[in-house]
C-alpha cells in the first residue's frame, strides 16, 4: 500500500468547509437581497427569516474566518522566487505547455486568494455588523452599506474562481479537501518544496 501524507488536519478541513459553507450561504442570501429574489427568500421562509440566516451566517463566517488565520495566515505572507516565476507562467493555467516552478504547500494564487478573502471578509464582516447593529448612525450605515457591497463584489469575483480551480480545473483537489490526505507520490509531484521541507524528498 502506497504511503499516504496528510496535508490538512481535520480541524483545518472542518474550518474550511464551515467557512466555505457560510460564505456560499451568505452569498446566496446576499444575492437574494440585492436583487429582491422572492424565490430564494421563500426557500428560507421569507425575507425576515432569510435576514436572520444571513446575519447569523455572518457570525459563523466571521468566526471561522478568524479561526482560519491560524492555519493559513503565516503561509499566505511568505513568497519566494518560485512564486514570482509562478506568476510569470500564470500558474500554468493559460497553457499546459509551460514549465510551472516547484511549489510549496500553497501556490501564490491560493495565498493571494486567501488574503483577499481575509481582507474582504473583514471588511464585509465589519460593515455587515455595522449595518446590523448601528442602524441609528446614518453616516456609518451608508459607509457600511458601500463597503459591504464593494467587498461583496470581491467575493463574487474571487469565490467562483476558487471553486472552479478547486474542482473542475484541478481534478483531485476536491477529494483532497475532503479527506485531507493524498498519496505521497502525488504530494511529491504537486508540493515538492513542502515535501522537501518535510524531509520526505
Amino acid at each position: 500500500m502506497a504511503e499516504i501524507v496528510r496535508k490538512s488536519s481535520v480541524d483545518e478541513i472542518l474550518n474550511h468547509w464551515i467557512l466555505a459553507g457560510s460564505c456560499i450561504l451568505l452569498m446566496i442570501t446576499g444575492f437574494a437581497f440585492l436583487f429582491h429574489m422572492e424565490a430564494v427568500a421563500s426557500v428560507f421562509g421569507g425575507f425576515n427569516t432569510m435576514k436572520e440566516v444571513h446575519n447569523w451566517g455572518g457570525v459563523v463566517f466571521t468566526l471561522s474566518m478568524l479561526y482560519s488565520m491560524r492555519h493559513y495566515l503565516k503561509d499566505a505572507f511568505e513568497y519566494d522566487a518560485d512564486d514570482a516565476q509562478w506568476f510569470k507562467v500564470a500558474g500554468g493555467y493559460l497553457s499546459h505547455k509551460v514549465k510551472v516552478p516547484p511549489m510549496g504547500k500553497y501556490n501564490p494564487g491560493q495565498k493571494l486568494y486567501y488574503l483577499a478573502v481575509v481582507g474582504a471578509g473583514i471588511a464585509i464582516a465589519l460593515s455587515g455588523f455595522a449595518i446590523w447593529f448601528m442602524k441609528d448612525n446614518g453616516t456609518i450605515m451608508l459607509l457600511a452599506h458601500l463597503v459591504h457591497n464593494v467587498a461583496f463584489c470581491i467575493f463574487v469575483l474571487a469565490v467562483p474562481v476558487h471553486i472552479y480551480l478547486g474542482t473542475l480545473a484541478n481534478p483531485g483537489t476536491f477529494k483532497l479537501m475532503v479527506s485531507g490526505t493524498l498519496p505521497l507520490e502525488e504530494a511529491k509531484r504537486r508540493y515538492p518544496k513542502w515535501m522537501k521541507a518535510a524531509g520526505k524528498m
Partner: protein
Amino acid sequence: MANETKNRKGMMVTPELCIGCRACQVACKSWNQLPGTKTTNNGTYQNPPDLNSTAFNLIRYNEVPGQENPVRWLFVSRRCMHCEEAGCMTICPTGAIYRTADGAVAVNRDKCIGCKLCTNACPFDVPRYDAENKMTKCHQCSDRTAAGMLPACVKTCPTGALKYGDRDEMIKTAKSDGFKTIYGEQDLSGLGTVYAFKDEPKLYGMKENPTIPGSVVFWHTYLKPLSFIGLGGVVAAAAIHYLAIGPHKEKEEV
C-alpha cells in the same frame, strides 16, 4: 427612470392655503389606526416634533421674519414625497418598498426586515420604524385611493391646502393660479408630493436640491450591476477556460 408611471397621481401641498388646523394629522392617525404618543410642549405648536412611526404627516410651524409684520408664520405639511427616484426603494434589500399603480411609494410590512437602510437613502428623512422595526411612512393612502377614495388627510383638509389628483394637471392648475415655484416638479425625476409656492421654497424650510446619497447612487449604478455581471463573467471565464484550455493534466507535467 424619469416619469415611469403614466397618469401619475400625486399630492399637491399649498402652504399658502394651510391654516395650521392639523385636521390632516388627526385624519391620518384615524384612518391608519395609529396611536397618539406622549409629548411635551417644546415652545412651539409643532408636535410631535418630527415624523415618527405613528405620525406619517405633520405640520411644521415655521416662523420667519416678515416685511409687513414682525413675523411670518408658515404652515407646511411634512410627509413622504413619493419620489419618482426613491432612495428608499432603491436601497431596500427586500423589495419591501414598492410603487403602487398610482405612483405612490408604499411599504409591504411583511417583507420589511427592519434593516433601516431606507432611512439613510431617503433625501427627506422620512422612513420611521415601529415597535417591530418595520418601516412606516405615508403611503398616500394607497388603500383608500385604490377604492376610489381621497387620501384621509386630503379629504379632511378644509382649505384645499392638500389636494390629490392627476399630478400634471394639478401642477398646471397651480401654475395658472400664480404659484411660480412648484417644488418637486423635477427633483428626483419628479416628486409625487409637490408643493406650490409663491416665494422661495427655502423660506418654508424645504430642502434645496434633494438628492439620494452619492454612495447609494454609486452602488446602484455600478456595484449592483458589477456583482451580477461579475459573477456571470467569472463563471463564463471558467467555462471558457475549461473548454479551451482544460483542466490540469498531471501526466503532461511528468
